[in-house]
């Protein structure tokens, strides 16, 4: 069970969090105009990365805030933690997050 540093509350056990799938998934802003294929890609064609992947997590049993984690899905190493709306922080050394 990982320890995750919530950007608002600090370090807490993984049990306090909910995983929310990949981060930075772009919802088509003019949904009515996109093709079935584009919409299908948005809905279903997720990367399921083995390796470094940006993810959304929610501190659901804490402050209830959503944020992003850049995490290695193979080793469970957390490379970066950053707030919603901030871009991917790919820097490997930035383990403490935002």
């Amino acid at each position, binding site marked *: *069970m990982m320890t995750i540093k919530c950007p608002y509350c600090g370090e807490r056990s993984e049990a306090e969090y909910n995983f929310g799938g990949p981060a930075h998934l772009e919802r088509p802003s003019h949904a009515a105009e996109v093709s079935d294929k584009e919409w299908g890609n948005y809905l279903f064609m997720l990367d399921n990365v083995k390796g470094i992947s940006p993810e959304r997590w929610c501190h659901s049993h804490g402050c209830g805030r959503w944020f992003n984690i850049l995490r290695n899905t193979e080793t*469970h190493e957390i490379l970066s933690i950053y707030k919603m709306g901030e871009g991917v922080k790919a820097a490997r050394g930035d383990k403490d997050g935002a």
Partner: protein
Amino acid sequence: MVHKINHISKLRLDVASQVNLEKPISFSFDGKIYNGFDGDSLASALIANGVRIVGRSFKYHRPRGIMSAGVEEANAIVQIGEEPYIQPNMLATKVELFDGLVAKSVNAWPNAGFDLFAPLGFAKPFFVAGFYYKVFKWPSWHFWSPLVRRLAGLGTAPKQPDPDDYDYHNSHTDILIVGAGAAGLVAALKHGKQGKKVLLVEQDKDLGGALLYEKFEIDGVPALDKVAEMVSALEAMKNVTIVKRATVTGYYDDNFITISERLRNHLPPEVDTHKPRERFWHLRAQQVIIATGAIERPLVFANNDRPGIMLASAVRHYASRFGIAVGRRIFIATNNDDAYRTAIDLHAVGINIVGIADIRPNPQGDLVIAARALGIIVHAGHAVINTKGSRGLKSISISKIDVKNNILDEKQQKFECDILATSGGWSPVVHLHSQSGGKLHFDDTLQAFIPRDYIQQNMCIGSANGVFELADILAETSEMTFKINKPKVEPIQAFWDLPKNVKKIKDSKRWVDLLHDVTASDVALAARENYVSVEHFKRYTTTGMAMDQGKTSNVNALAILGRETGREIAQVGTTKFRPPYSPVSMGAMAARSTGALFSPLRNLPMHIWHKDNGAIFEDYGGWNRPAYYTKSGESEQKAVEREVSAVRQHVGILDYSPLGKIMVKGPDCAVFLDYFYCNNVSNLKLNRARYGLMLNEDGNVIDDGVFIRVADDEFMVTTTSGGAARFAAYLEEWRQCEWPHMDVVISNITTGWGCISLQGPKARDLLHKFDIPIDLSAENFPHMSMRSTEFAGVDIKILRTSFTGELGFEIYMPRSYANAMWEMLINVGNAFKIQPFGLEALMVMRTEKGFIHIGVDTDSTTIPADIGFAVPARKKPSDYIGKRSLFRPESLRTDREVLVGLKVVGDAPLQMGSIILAKGYDKAPAPMDGRVTSSYNSPTMGYPIALGLLKNGQSRMGELIKIYDLDGMQEAEVVAPCFYDPKWRQIDG
């Protein structure tokens, strides 16, 4: 309770040991009564009583005896206690004896000594590797599985509820030290002195590890005295916590550790019942020091599973710690120096060492020289090849072996002995290191897998790290210096299986995994069938699986797999070890989360009133709600009929408090909510309400409810009672992640507010009896509107809505006022023949009216069009979650399953979930056209009614359809999904 016998067995040695011969104990095994002493393990007591057969093997029911003195025991698996205290899967070697202990063998019937299933041993050809997949194919596995399960079980699960308590324990520490052997103890001293918070966990009842039985001297005193000195130093440190009888069972991410601590297993069940039986720890450690020691490997030769064949270290363990001679004539087989300690120790207490067969052609280590000096005969360059003795070892034979060229001499020498002590070298206990993500490396000098590549904050020390000599362990771990005699040790000779040049040996049964009855030929067979990847091999042969986790079998099996596939052990590799290291009780993991605390139900504000008035409660989405209220002797059906008719004719009252209630406030609240409903939200006028469906992005209906505009910038949203928390979280997720710029606040007030629903034609008349300062008339307070007002000094909201089809008012108020309001309404309502009604009556009435129940009449594929909302959902101009999906070809198909009413032919209601057969079929099996989702006897209509999802349903009105369930076939007519008052004439009362 068993009565006492107080004689001392001939196998008890006349030496000082850790068993107290002043304190006799009686216990039973397989129904027979034996005696033992305080300090005995069940295994040591059984050995002292001359019990050689303690179990039967897993597949072939071969007689098996105790083979070890520790957690690596693969044979002596027993069941402890009687109902309701049964504990299956216990190792006799780790069970501490107490007075009155009841133990039974497993996998044998009627007992281990005389097992009626023993002839299965002759059926060996059927039970080869992968036999599950090969033998039980015809007619099908389901035909065989009951028989196999009866034959193969290891113990019986208790039938009665467990009367004991178990606990969780969450904890943190600077340093966790796993194992209190020499390495663990000195590491604890070192870190303890530095002031660190140290947790030292030992699976045994005593600290010391191998020092509990090895005849070492440290600083000129016996090792045990040195251990006692270290333990009292540790006990004096406030920052050091020692936990005994506790096993570190799992090592997870970020140094998250689970520990299974056994507080009462060593005591009679009726003692200390105020304490939990076991405690399951969740620990976070800054650093983990793995000092788990090493486990001796058995040697592989023909019939190496007979009772009396034991690990060499176990033989001296029983002699030293328990003062027991495991036999009178001991032969030793080895490929290393360490086994010579057994010869020396046992010789010292007067036991006859018949001989030592050492694979190595010319062993010259100090221990070898010492053994020879005692007159013990060493057969260098010899291997034990076979054994005899059907109910326990009687003799062994050895042959000359040329390991270099892998050739066995045909000539044999036979020796009579009752114990064969074997040592194939030592395997560091690397389980936790592997679980932590660390890698292993095969060391050719040690012939063992040792830890390498630490991934987390941990380290292995002592023999867990491949440092086997005590002098080296202490020097490596401690800053103190100790005076220890270090013998010159010669390297181990790699040796995994007998050469196959002798036919009789080639065809013999040579056990590799005693627990799972896997032989060397099974390993070879798996290799021939191309199960060469170690992960596949493990699953195919079952080697190293289940409770044992390969403690004694892994390395031998991997080496033989390597030989069969022409690879070195390092190339074969190991599987990743998985938790738990040793079995953990289910009770300990469940801890307090059992019974009523497993998933605690929430009670309603009027719970006590309901209870006092005959409510029969049921769990509806986590809420403890009245299903119906029963008057004396009334059946459920009668009660529901009475409640329905009260609502239809007079007025009914329902505790509707679990209804999800979410406030959405802020300048952007209407725009925001427009994203969540397939109906328009922003054009809703003040104080008006609208029914809406909420979708997910796939276009599927996930919830429904009424939303009400309570202010220009505020909505109240209602959800299904089970869906409130989920839907509030869903709103939050989209607000935070997708539309953070919107100025909206979401607040789930479900449990803070009570709700009382009045339903029925007399509902308005009843409210008129109260002094409520609002106009309740149908013209000025129409259906689907809300009024905020004050009542008896309390701010309340009244919503005109209906889930029954009758005139209805839902009264919302702070939860604490709900009960007073409820009692007042009932008192005044008696004049209107008011009746409280439960969920069952509500379900009947909403079905009569054709109102859907989310999750019952819909599933995870239902879109708005399927339940009659095609037009609003597609026509809504603005975007909303799931909208685009409603235009995918799948959503536009005209033959989707849609909601219909079903009017049953005959008197029996349909079973919910029964299958609607495709057109043209009149019996199953048949393709299906849909299913029945809701079904009730309708007291209002006087016939059974149902709702269902039917392919192409709108265009099949009037059609007779066939419905199948396990009770047989029924027929029903497809009708519109509204049986009661389709013209909505009742809604205004």
